């Protein structure tokens, strides 16, 4: 008899495909995983605790650093929660600017995902194509607020800067460009037999499981659940726009892939409508008291970030600082299903499944 042993393999925190400092301890029987234990917290900075000693405006830059691939939506959720609590009016132009940058951000974030996912699968070139196109969006943000990644752009009651001269035209030009590039992506990758063989039927789960684990975003919609907060609990101006929520059927990595690419298309569709009805220049900050003191009470505000339901729960005691602040981070919640999905899969599928969930470690650890 040959004596065989289980192999305990430590994947991460320094590993090219754990998207940062994330770690999984896997037990391998040959190349088949029998047990997977995720270890997180390598990037924990205590944002929520720090926030308790900061004014609301001071918290905004901290939100940039949670999901650093999609900082605009993070900015928004905090401002949105505080505004809802205080009943503040946001000027029309500011709200449009917010919506435009959030949709641009969704595209940029999905491009990062698309590129790195293909890199995980072993194709190197798409990564560089995705970053070429993301760069255009980053440049737009840079022009708008002077930062490429951590924008600190939104404020309670509006946005910090109005769009500079010619910025809106650049966004208008970007829409047909991106649509063209999406076709190129499909031609290059989406039909590739090897790629399809790698992602079809991998990491599949049903709607019941997804809801049970509290998944959201593409991870939920891939099972066929039509749930997008932009439609189901409209915030900002999303009820003024027409767009579709793509859903999947099989709940596997291929469905998640299709959904994310389709979401880029829908975001472009929203952007096109927004650019058509963009309001004339006007104020970009509402009437906000000098010291922001939400009334005593609690609020939970949630938006659809590129990764899923991003929520902000504020407990206020009427002071300038929150008594308690809690972010519901979609990366963290979506990650919880990982150990269940990994059992019985191979090492190779570990990377495919983890990549398919689309985590940002800054958001997982917060």
């Amino acid at each position, binding site marked *: 008899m040959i004596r065989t042993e289980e*192999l305990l*393999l430590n994947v991460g925190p320094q*590993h*090219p*495909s754990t998207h940062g400092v994330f770690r999984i301890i896997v037990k391998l029987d040959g*190349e088949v995983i029998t047990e997977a234990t995720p270890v997180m917290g390598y990037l924990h900075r205590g944002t929520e605790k720090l926030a308790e000693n900061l004014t609301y405006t001071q918290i905004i830059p901290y939100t940039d650093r949670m999901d650093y691939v999609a900082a605009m939506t993070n900015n928004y959720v905090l401002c949105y929660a505080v505004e809802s609590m205080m009943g503040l009016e946001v000027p029309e132009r500011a709200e449009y600017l917010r919506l435009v940058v959030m949709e641009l951000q969704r595209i940029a974030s999905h491009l990062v995902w698309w590129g790195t996912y*293909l*890199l*995980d*699968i*072993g*194709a*190197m*070139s798409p990564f*560089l*194509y995705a970053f*070429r196109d993301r760069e255009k969006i980053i440049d737009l943000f840079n022009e708008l607020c002077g930062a490429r990644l951590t924008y600190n752009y939104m404020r309670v009651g509006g946005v910090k800067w109005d769009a500079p001269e010619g910025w809106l035209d650049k966004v208008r030009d970007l829409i047909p460009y991106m649509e063209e590039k999406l076709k190129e992506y499909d031609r290059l990758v989406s039909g*590739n037999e*090897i*790629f399809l*063989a*790698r992602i079809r039927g991998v990491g599949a789960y049903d709607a019941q499981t997804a809801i049970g684990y509290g998944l959201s975003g593409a991870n939920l919609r891939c099972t066929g659940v039509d749930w997008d907060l932009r439609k189901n609990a409209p915030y900002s101006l999303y009820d003024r726009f027409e767009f579709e929520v793509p859903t999947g059927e099989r709940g596997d990595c291929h469905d998640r892939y299709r959904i994310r690419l389709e979401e880029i298309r829908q975001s472009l569709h929203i952007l096109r409508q927004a650019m058509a009805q963009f309001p004339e220049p006007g104020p970009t900050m509402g009437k906000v008291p000098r010291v922001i003191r939400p009334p005593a009470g609690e609020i939970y505000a949630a938006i659809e970030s590129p990764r899923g339901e991003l929520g902000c729960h504020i407990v206020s005691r009427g002071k300038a600082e929150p008594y308690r602040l809690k972010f519901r981070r979609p990366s963290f919640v979506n990650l919880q299903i990982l150990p269940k999905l990994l059992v019985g899969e*191979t*090492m*190779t*599928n*570990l*990377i495919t499944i983890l990549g398919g969930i689309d985590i940002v470690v800054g958001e997982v650890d917060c």
Partner: protein
Amino acid sequence: MGDLLREPLTAGNALLFLLAAAGLLLIVLGFVTYAIYFERRVIGWMQLRVGPNRVGPLGLLQTVADIFKLLIKEDTIPRKADRALFVLAPVLAYVPAFAVLAVIPYTSGLYFADLNVGLLYYVALSSMTTLAIVLGGWASNNKYALLGGMRSAAQMISYEVPLVMSVVGVVMLSGSMNLRSIVAAQGDWFWQWHFLPQLIGFAIFVVASVSELNRTPFDLPEAESELVAGYHVEYSGFRFAFFMLTEYVYVYAIAALTTVLFLGGWHPPAPFLDIVPGLIWFVLKFALVVFVLFWLRATFPRLRVDQLMGFGWKVLLPLALLNIFVTAAYMELWIK
């Protein structure tokens, strides 16, 4: 070289052979240096990047600098590694890679060994490298290296079978395993070369040889996104350089073998083009094969282990057997 081989062995001849071997080594090293440079430039161009362009004119000395860096790097051996095997593995990987080059004929007169079982010699020796890779993976005492080594063993054994089977058709058509005779058996016009009559065999050969080379889309033994670096994860400095060298020498060997077996070796594509020397034609075809290998790397994602195995055993092998059968039937019915 051909005439020299037929003469009796004297001290002078032996010296000439040694010099020629040293010359070949230099050519191979030069090839590897510039193949790496060429690969980085080609892939850079395909990926909207620039590629190396800083060291020397147009970056031509980049690989030289890289190799020099590897030379002066500290040579680390993990404390719990199996020292003897760890040291042996890179050498064992490289030696067969260089030894197989002996049977490659470049022109009708320029070759090193005129073996009647040349093809068999190539296949037999090149599988020794698998052993070295498994050995390196095992001796490193690293789990990622071990997984890489195991994958490599499984992959190379599975793909050697269709690789050998795919060239049987060529051997049958030319009636010889001598690589020179195989080239001679291919006609003067390019459609008479083996890649057309042996289209299935050619396709299988290309797929299986990319797999033997551990290159994308079959680069599983060193799958960066899964196994970090695979079997050579613990190697550094010059030992690592040896593994890299082996890989690129095999690129050289496979490109030369493809040229010889399927692309008519030193024959010009049409008889009236023979004013251009055969060596030039050989180099051109050879360069084309190398370019295609690099091109593949910029294009494809990676297969999964089980898919790789399934593809090798369930698709390539039956196809290769079918190819032998069809070739045999063709020879029996038409040629006789």
